[in-house]
């Protein structure tokens, strides 16, 4: 089993060898003969334009048609999570800090993120789309994908969806809809004309579209993959499309080459759901901190991850800790045991032990700016631990604490190790899936 850590979200991405074999079997045979998928396009990708900012503009009509940025914090260094369509016209992008944004657009209006608002709109979208398909997949907080039964016309359905969104969810919310024969191309189509776009990519126009886009417009082709392609003389999407499967396999040095060869020809290989393999929490500290200062915050991250772990009915046998320092270096280490952990105290003790035992050099003054904690090696909580009397008591205590927090609100009862973390690790929505 291969795994890698996603340092951005703090989650552990695991791909089983078994799953990779299954994907390979899906590839059509005689790859060299493949032409673009001749089927009628029926995969719809729906993208809520400038999601967080649009929802804020929907909630507050006085913000409409104005440059708005949803920020993690309205302090000058607060990270811009989502600029509105109008703010994007001023060159404001996700990831900038608020001070940079205000330099580009002095009239920029900042609003702190309000996750419950975005989750509610997401849930309304999901309910609406379920009227069109029984297999709607949420790709992220602002993206959905589903396949349309063949009796429906994608253009008419898209028009209907846009109209219903305005009347049933919010008159200021706009979506871009892309239609194609696979998920990657449907997503690409949804991004061709934003906001409020509608595009189809099929056997009739795919070459035309390929001539107008860049390699990085494909979801999955990042700067590193683009550099790989450049090394063999692939600089444009038409070149990418016309490259042989053998060359692509050598470019990506993996089965990814075969996948891209197939995706570019409109065949579906991404309709695979991977089971959850980890629970993680990460946090960028508001200022660089010494160990004594960030320990309570780590305790809170562990508590949040552990709560989600238990709520899903799992225990974890492995943990991973990642620290990023102000000097741009980082440290990370993982540990797997034969025991299953589920409570905050055990997971936190393991994390701190991991840090104490594995960090060999702790220079004075070295401060941390980001922490990510992940627990993996998930096992179903089947009650086998209960044969030991003290574990029964421990489990009962943890369950009681969870019930108190369910009833009276999160962090009504906490471990003392979290003291000092009150204003940190607020509710947030992760990017990506």
């Amino acid at each position: 089993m291969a795994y890698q850590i996603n340092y951005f979200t703090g989650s552990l991405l695991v791909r089983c060898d078994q799953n990779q074999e299954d994907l390979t079997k899906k590839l059509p045979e005689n790859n060299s003969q493949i032409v673009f998928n001749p089927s009628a396009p029926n995969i719809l990708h729906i993208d809520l334009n400038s999601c967080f900012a649009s929802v804020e503009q929907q909630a507050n009509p006085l913000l409409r048609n104005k440059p708005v940025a949803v920020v993690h914090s309205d302090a000058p260094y607060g990270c811009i999570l989502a600029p509105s369509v109008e703010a994007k016209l001023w060159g404001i992008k996700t990831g900038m800090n608020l001070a940079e944004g205000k330099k580009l657009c002095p009239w920029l209006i900042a609003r702190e993120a309000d996750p419950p608002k975005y989750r509610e709109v997401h849930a309304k979208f999901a309910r609406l789309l379920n009227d069109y398909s029984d297999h709607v997949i949420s790709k992220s907080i602002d993206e959905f994908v589903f396949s349309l039964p063949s009796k429906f016309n994608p253009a008419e359905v898209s028009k209907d969806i846009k109209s219903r969104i305005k009347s049933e969810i919010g008159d200021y919310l706009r979506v871009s809809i892309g239609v194609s024969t696979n998920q990657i191309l449907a997503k690409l189509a949804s991004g061709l004309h934003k906001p409020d776009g509608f595009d189809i990519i099929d056997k009739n126009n795919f070459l035309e579209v390929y001539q107008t886009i860049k390699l990085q417009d494909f979801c999955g082709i990042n700067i590193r993959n683009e550099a790989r392609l450049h090394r063999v003389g692939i600089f444009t999407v038409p070149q990418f499309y016309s490259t042989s499967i053998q060359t692509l396999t050598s470019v990506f040095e993996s089965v990814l080459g075969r996948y891209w060869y197939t995706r570019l020809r409109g065949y579906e290989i991404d309709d695979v759901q991977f089971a959850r393999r980890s629970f993680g929490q990460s946090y960028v500290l508001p200022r660089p901190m010494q160990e004594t200062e960030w320990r309570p915050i780590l305790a809170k991250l562990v508590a949040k991850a552990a709560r989600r772990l238990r709520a899903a009915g799992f225990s974890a046998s492995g943990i991973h800790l990642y620290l990023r320092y102000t000097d741009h270096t980082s440290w990370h280490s993982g540990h797997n045991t034969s025991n299953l952990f589920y409570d905050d105290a055990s997971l936190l003790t393991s994390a701190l032990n991991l840090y104490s035992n594995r960090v060999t050099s702790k220079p004075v003054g070295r401060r941390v700016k980001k922490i990510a904690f992940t627990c993996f090696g998930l096992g179903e909580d089947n009650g086998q631990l209960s044969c030991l009397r003290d574990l029964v008591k421990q489990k009962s205590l943890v369950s009681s604490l969870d019930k108190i927090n369910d009833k009276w609100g999160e962090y009504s009862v906490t471990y003392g190790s979290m003291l000092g973390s009150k204003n940190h690790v607020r509710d947030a929505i992760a990017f990506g899936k």
Partner: protein
Amino acid sequence: MIHKISEPISVIASYNSDIRAARPLSLKWGHHEYSVSQVGLRHTYRDGITRHHVFSVVSNSLFFRLNLNTDNLSWTLEEVSDGLPD
């Protein structure tokens, strides 16, 4: 300009059984009464077992964020804004 507030507020609301939706009609803040001209969005969240309904409403040139606590049926004014940059 945005003002974060947390103070009890008097609200007159209505419920329409045809569309099964409730909405604030007017609110009294300070010595002024504001009639609600538009409800931008209603969303909910839970704090423990208590469900809160948040109404984002506009009265002429002012935006109000009203929070209805369904446990004790009390209204709280959480935010007032004029939609202009800070």
